[in-house]
C-alpha cells in the first residue's frame, strides 16, 4: 500500500514537472520518461476502467496536458503513439488497427494465476466452466481481477493455463469452455 502511495506521489511529481511533457532526446532519459508515462496511463485506464480506446480519444484525456503554470503544455499525437507502442510491447494494450486498441487492465499471466487460484478456492478443479461463467458467474465477484473483463482477455489467460498444464480449453461453435486440471 505504501508502495502504491509512493508511486502515486511520484507520478504527481512528474505530472507537475514541465519537461515531462516534452519527450527528451537523451536516450536514457527518454526511455525512463516513456516508462513513467506508460505506468501513469495504465493507472489512468485502471482507475477509469477503460477497456477500449483510440488514439484520437487519447488526445483528449487530461493527463497528457498541463496548464497549471499558465502555459499549456501537452504531448502531441506522435508522442502519445510512442507511449502507446511501449505499452503494447509490455502487454498493457493491444492494437486492433492503426487507431484503436483494447486495454489489458491486468496482464494475461496475472489473470491466469488469478483464475486458477479462484478455481482452486471454489473447488472447480476437474470441473468445466464457461468464459462467461468465469467473469460473471455466481461464484465470482467484483473483488476478482477478472470480473467483468472481455472474454478475449479471459480466453488468453486460459490459453496460458493450458500451456502450463493447468486447464484444457474446448471450443464448440464459437463458444469456449474451460476444464481446470
Amino acid at each position, binding site marked *: 500500500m505504501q508502495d502504491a502511495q509512493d508511486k502515486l506521489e511520484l507520478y504527481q*511529481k512528474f505530472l507537475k*514537472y514541465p*519537461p515531462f*511533457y516534452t519527450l527528451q*532526446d*537523451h536516450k536514457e*532519459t527518454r526511455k525512463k520518461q516513456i516508462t513513467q508515462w506508460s505506468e501513469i496511463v495504465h493507472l489512468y485506464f485502471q482507475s477509469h476502467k477503460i477497456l477500449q480506446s483510440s488514439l484520437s480519444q487519447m488526445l483528449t484525456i487530461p493527463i497528457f496536458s498541463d496548464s497549471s503554470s499558465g502555459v499549456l*503544455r501537452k504531448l502531441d499525437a506522435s508522442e502519445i503513439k510512442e507511449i502507446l507502442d511501449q505499452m503494447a510491447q509490455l502487454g498493457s494494450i493491444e492494437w486492433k488497427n492503426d487507431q484503436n486498441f483494447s486495454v489489458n487492465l491486468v496482464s494475461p499471466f496475472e489473470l491466469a494465476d488469478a483464475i486458477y487460484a479462484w478455481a482452486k478456492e471454489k473447488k472447480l478443479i476437474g470441473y468445466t466452466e464457461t468464459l462467461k461463467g468465469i467473469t460473471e458467474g455466481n461464484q465470482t465477484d467484483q473483488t476478482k481481477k477478472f470480473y467483468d473483463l472481455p472474454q478475449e482477455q479471459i480466453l488468453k489467460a486460459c490459453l496460458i493455463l493450458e500451456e502450463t498444464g493447468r486447464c484444457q480449453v474446448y471450443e464448440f461453435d464459437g463458444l469456449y469452455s474451460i476444464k481446470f486440471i
Partner: protein
Amino acid sequence: MQQSLFFLSAEMTAMTQFNEKTLFIYQNMQFLDKKLKMKVPKLNLVITTHRLIFTNNPNIEQLKTNDAQFVYLVVPLQHIKTVQTKTGFLSSQIDHINFETNLGDVSLYGDNLEGPLLQIKGSMEKKEWLKVQEQQQTQSVYRGLKSELDKKEKQTQQTIETVQSTFKGGFEELFKNASELKEISQYIKQNIKKGENNEIDEILSKIGQSRLDKTEDQFYEKLAEQVYKLCVELFPKMGGIISLLDVYYYFNKKRNQNLVSPEEILKAGLQFQKLNYQAKIERYDGISVFESTQYNIDKDYENTLGKFISYEVGLTAEQLAKKLGISVMICKIKLRNAINQGKVCVDNRIEGTRYFQNLIINI
C-alpha cells in the same frame, strides 16, 4: 584678317580673377589657333589657377595695363572641354597639346611639354574659379542641391590642402617628427634577418603585425602560437570554450589594419594538435569553437550551468548566458553537452525553450 577670339588687351589680361595665382611660366612656346590656322611662336606660357596666358611680354608678372606693345592670347581654363596630347612620329615625347574649348580649338607646341601638361591638368582639377561662384551663392537665401555639392567639394579641397601642407617639406620634414619610430624600424631592419628574434616578434605582435619572412606553413605556426596565447588568457573567463568569432574579435582588437581573417585563425587553430597545444578546434552544430583539451563537461556544468538550473524554475538560453556572462552561442553548446550527459531536460513551449535540471533520470 579675322582676329583670334583668344586675343586680349593688356588691360583685360591684367585683370586677375578672385584668388587667381600664377603657378609657372614656360618659355619658348607656340600657340596655334586651329580655326584661323594662325601660329604664334616664341611666346611665354603663363599657367595660372584660372587661365593660360600666351604672351611675348618677358615681365608678365609686372604687367601694366598700358603695355600695348606685347601680344596676349588668353585661354580661360573653365572653357577647356578636353585636353589631348599628340606624340611625334616614332617618338614617345609629346609633340603638342590640343585643347578643345568653347571658343574654338587651339594647340600648344614646344619642347618638354610634360611639365606644362601636368600643371594645366592640376589647375583644371582644382577649379579655383568656382570659388567666386560659391561666395555669391552663400549670399542667396535659398540653397539647393548644387550649393550642397559645392560645399562638399570645398571640404574635399580643404582636406587636400591640409594633406599637401603636411607634406610641404617632403618626407625629411616628416621624419624629423618621427625619430622614435625611425629608430625602432632601423632596429627591426638590422635584426630581422638574424633569424628568430622574440623581441622583434613581440614588438610586431603588439602593433598587430607578423613577420613576412616566413613560408605559409611557418606563418600559420607562428599565428597558431599567437592565437593559442590568446586562448590561454580567455579560457578561464569563457569556461573552456571560445567561439571562432570571439577569437577573431579579440585577436584583431589591437590591430586597425591587415586584420587576420577568420579563415586564417581557423587554419592556425588546426595546427594546435600538431604543435601539442592544450587546445583544439571542435564543431558543434556547424559552429567552430576553440576548446581547451582540459575542458571537462561535468566540472564545467557544476561551475557554470549547474549553479543556476533547477528542477522548479526553467531558464532560457539567453537568461543563462546573461547570468554566466558568455555568449548565447557558447551557452547553447554547453546546454547541448549537458543534455547529452543527461544533466538537463528541455521544456519546449510556445514562448520558447526552457531548461531544467533532469528529474526524470535522477529518480
